[in-house]
C-alpha cells in the first residue's frame, strides 16, 4: 500500500473516532455501544500501520486482491453489528411496552384515588 493512501486512511479513521468521542461526551452515545465502533477502528488502524500486514494476510487467506479481503471483512463486521442492533432494538421494544403498561395502570390508580379524595373533601366542607 502506498504511504499516501495509508496516511489518508488513518487520518479519516482518526476523524471518525473523534466524532464518536464527541458524541459520547454529549451523552448521545453510551460508552457501552460506542465500544464496538472504537475497537473495530483501532484494529483497522493497527492493521494499516503494520507494513505489509494486509498483503500478507490476504495472500495467506487466498485473496487475489487486498481490497477484496478488506471489503469482505468490512461487510461481515457490518452485518454482525447491525444484527446486534436488531437484538438490542427488540429488547428495548419489550421494555418500552412493559413501561407503557405499568405507567398507564398506575395513572388509572392515581386518578381513582384523586377522585375519591375530591368527593371526601366535598363532604367535609
Amino acid at each position, binding site marked *: 500500500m502506498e504511504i499516501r493512501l495509508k496516511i489518508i486512511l488513518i487520518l479519516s479513521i482518526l476523524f471518525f473516532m473523534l466524532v464518536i468521542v464527541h458524541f459520547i461526551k454529549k451523552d448521545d452515545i453510551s460508552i457501552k455501544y460506542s465500544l464496538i465502533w472504537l475497537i473495530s477502528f483501532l484494529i483497522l488502524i493497527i492493521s494499516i500501520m503494520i507494513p505489509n500486514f494486509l498483503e500478507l494476510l490476504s495472500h495467506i487467506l487466498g485473496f487475489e486482491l487486498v481490497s477484496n479481503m478488506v471489503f469482505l471483512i468490512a461487510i461481515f463486521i457490518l452485518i454482525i453489528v447491525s444484527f446486534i442492533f436488531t437484538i438490542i432494538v427488540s429488547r428495548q421494544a419489550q421494555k418500552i*411496552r412493559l413501561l*407503557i*403498561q405499568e*405507567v*398507564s*395502570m398506575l*395513572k*388509572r390508580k392515581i386518578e381513582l384515588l384523586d377522585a375519591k379524595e375530591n368527593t371526601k373533601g366535598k363532604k367535609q366542607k
Partner: protein
Amino acid sequence: MKQKILLIIPAYNEEENILKTCQNIMDYNKRNKTNYNMIVINDGSKDHTKQILEDNQIPHINLIHNLGIGGAVQTGYKYALENNYDIAIQYDGDGQHDVSYVKELIQPILDGQADLTIGSRFLEKEKSSFQSTFTRRIGIHFISFLIKICTGKKITDTTSGFRAANTNIIEEFAKEYPSDSPEPSSFVEIANKGFNIKEVAVSMNEREGGTSSITNHFWKPIYYMINVSLSIIITSLKVRRKS
C-alpha cells in the same frame, strides 16, 4: 361464591362504536342481573375515544402510547390479575361480539372443563350470520391447519378475539403475550403448555364502523399470513408440546 368476571375491551380509534358496545353490556347486566365488570383499554386513540370514556364514566385505562392489539389486551390481563378476577374475557370494542354469548363462553370454565374458551364463528355453520369473505376463510383454514400440525389440536376460528380465560391463563397472559397477531400464537403456547382449550359456537356481527386491524391495506393480509405462520412455528419450537 360469586365469580368475578371482567370484560377486557381493547379500543383504538373506536369513537363510533365504543359507547354502544359498553351500553349494550350495561343493559345486559341490568336485564339479566349479571355482574360483568368491564375495562376499556384505550390504546392511544387519536380520536375522541378517551373523551367519550371519561364523559360516560366507563372504567378504562388510557395507554400513554399506542401499543397495538397485543400490548393492549395484555394490559387488560394484568389488570385482571391485579384485581383478582376469576374470569377475564376478551371482547372487541367495535360491536362485532354479542354480550349474550358470554354466558355460554364462560360455562365450560365455570364447570372446570376448560382453562380457555374461544368463541368460534365456524363451529356451527348455521349459527353465525357473519362468516367473513372467501379469501379470509382460506387464510383461516390455512392457519387452522398449521396449528393442527404444531399442537395436534383442532381450532376452527383461529383469529377470534372473543375468548374467556380462567385464573391460570390470566396469569400466563399477564406474564407473556405476543404483540403481533396475538390470537393464533397465544393459542399454540397455551395448548402446548397442556391447558384445556374449548371452542364455543357463537355468532358475530359485521363490524359497524372503524376498520379491521388485518385488512385495511392490500399488502397487510400478505404480511399478516407470513407473520402468523412464522409466529406459530416459532412458538411451537419455543414451547414444546406436553405429551
